[in-house]
């Protein structure tokens, strides 16, 4: 099969603001508005946007942890809309502290998505841990005994252990230090090259996706406002919001960086 690995069609999610009285709900708020895109096997896609842009909702609908109000998720030619973690699809969450059960050992955490017999299981867990650059000996430890970067590696190992074809990563490095971020991003890229793994990397920071994705989707207010190859979007942004995101990445040179901040200063309404 040579079609796309994933096809998102008009995915829409609305929330009713919680109301103190039943039947008196306000109008539903659309947090994800008819998002559509496709992903080829082995492709790396970035989704960028601020908080409230709908990017996390898109991921949760994509892996089936949320049921969309409209639209379809077609994965490997099969409609998997609303199906929780269809085979071959996994997800990595933002905060590795929160995504690992504090009371389970690393080996049990990593092995959770596996069903098969015990002997095989240990081998696969050790392999997955090795894959993300961890000593299989950490399998006996508890999450709080690891550093933030190690914990995120464990989360990635858990996503990889069942050999998925696609992994969604929701802000996988924003809780990490800069030097550790680089380690995790480099790991992702190498996994893609080695296993032909496709991934969708969600971030509020354009710099994070610049290096690690081939195509880019920009979201604002629940909508996809721009899409294209990463190089194209970064070089010639069409939508003003994309430009704002680009401006927000401060250049490394003191003079240029100080000049850049001036733009944000002028944009802001000032009081007395």
């Amino acid at each position, binding site marked *: 099969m040579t079609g796309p690995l994933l096809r998102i069609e008009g995915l829409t999610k609305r929330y009713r603001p919680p109301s103190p009285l039943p039947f008196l709900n306000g109008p539903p708020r659309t947090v994800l508005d008819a998002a559509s895109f496709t992903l080829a096997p082995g492709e790396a896609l970035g989704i960028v946007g601020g908080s409230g842009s709908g990017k996390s909702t898109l991921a949760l609908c994509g892996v089936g942890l949320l049921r969309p109000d409209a639209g379809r998720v077609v994965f490997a030619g099969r409609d998997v809309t609303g199906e929780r973690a269809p085979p071959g699809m996994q997800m990595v969450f933002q905060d590795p502290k929160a995504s690992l059960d504090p009371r389970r050992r690393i080996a049990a955490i990593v092995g959770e998505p596996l069903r098969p017999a015990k002997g095989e299981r240990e081998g696969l867990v050790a392999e997955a841990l090795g894959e993300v650059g961890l000593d299989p000996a950490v399998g006996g430890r508890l999450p709080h005994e690891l550093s933030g970067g190690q*914990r995120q590696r464990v*989360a990635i190992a858990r996503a990889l252990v069942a050999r998925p074809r696609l992994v969604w990563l929701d802000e996988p490095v924003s809780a990490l230090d800069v030097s550790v971020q680089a380690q995790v991003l480099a790991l992702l890229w190498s996994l893609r090259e080695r296993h032909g793994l496709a991934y969708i990397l969600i971030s509020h920071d354009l710099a994070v996706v610049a290096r690690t994705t081939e195509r880019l989707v920009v979201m604002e207010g629940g909508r996809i406002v721009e899409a294209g190859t990463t190089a194209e979007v970064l070089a010639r942004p069409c939508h003003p919001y994309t430009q704002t995101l680009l401006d927000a990445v401060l250049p490394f040179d003191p003079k240029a960086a100080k000049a850049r901040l001036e733009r944000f200063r002028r944009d802001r309404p000032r009081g007395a």
Partner: protein
Amino acid sequence: MARRLAFWLGGGLTSALVLTALLGAVWTPYPIDAVAVVERLQAPSPLHPFGTDQLGRDMLSLLMAGAGTSLLVAAAAVAAGAGFGVPLGLLAAFRGGVADEAVMRLSDLALAFPALLTAAMIAATYGPGVLDAVVAIAIFNVPVFARLARSLALPLTGRAFVQAGYLAGKDALGVVVVHVLPNVASLLVVQAAIQLAFALLAEASLSYLGLGVQPPGASWGRMLGEAQTYMRLAPHVVLFPGLAIVLAVMGLNLLGDGLRDRLDPRLWEGS
């Protein structure tokens, strides 16, 4: 240091309570129904370390036998309360919507019936008895555990590791059993110790009023209720049963506090 002391003191008092109850069930220095009016209201002596009551019965023997009754009533009530309350609370947290609303309304209803009122109603209808006390205390414990389990589980429903459990192919029941229960169990155990203390107090109050344990069963609360008239003549008849209640309740409370302190909060927050 003080915390460690509290834990060990609580553990010690609770162990002593349990051992006394077990011993009292098989052996007491004197039979608890050995009425001897000539020996009534004797002050403590080597023969009767805690004196005798208004019917001349040995107070120590009554206290030993009473330990078992109190503990049994309290344990049965708390076990029943937790047995119904915890699953209901978890259901409310994970189902949400109508199930949540129903559980919360029912728990509001149950909380409107303090144990004393329930016991009074049952006693008025069926006559007083130890089962009244158990049922009444249990009914009040159900919402306590339901609400606690719900409030502990609710923040976990959105936690990424619970979501990850779904992604690993588990259904709601699997996620609750594997990820949620172990993470809330320790605090539930702590609450159980504290509820046990409350239940002990409640049993004493009910038995004191004549709504709980009936003769010939021994109970600290009933001893106080029956001896109250004689307190001017022999203060020891009201002193010792009360002290027994205080020590037992304090032991359970200290144990609960100590257990809470021992739960490593780092497991929750990461290092």
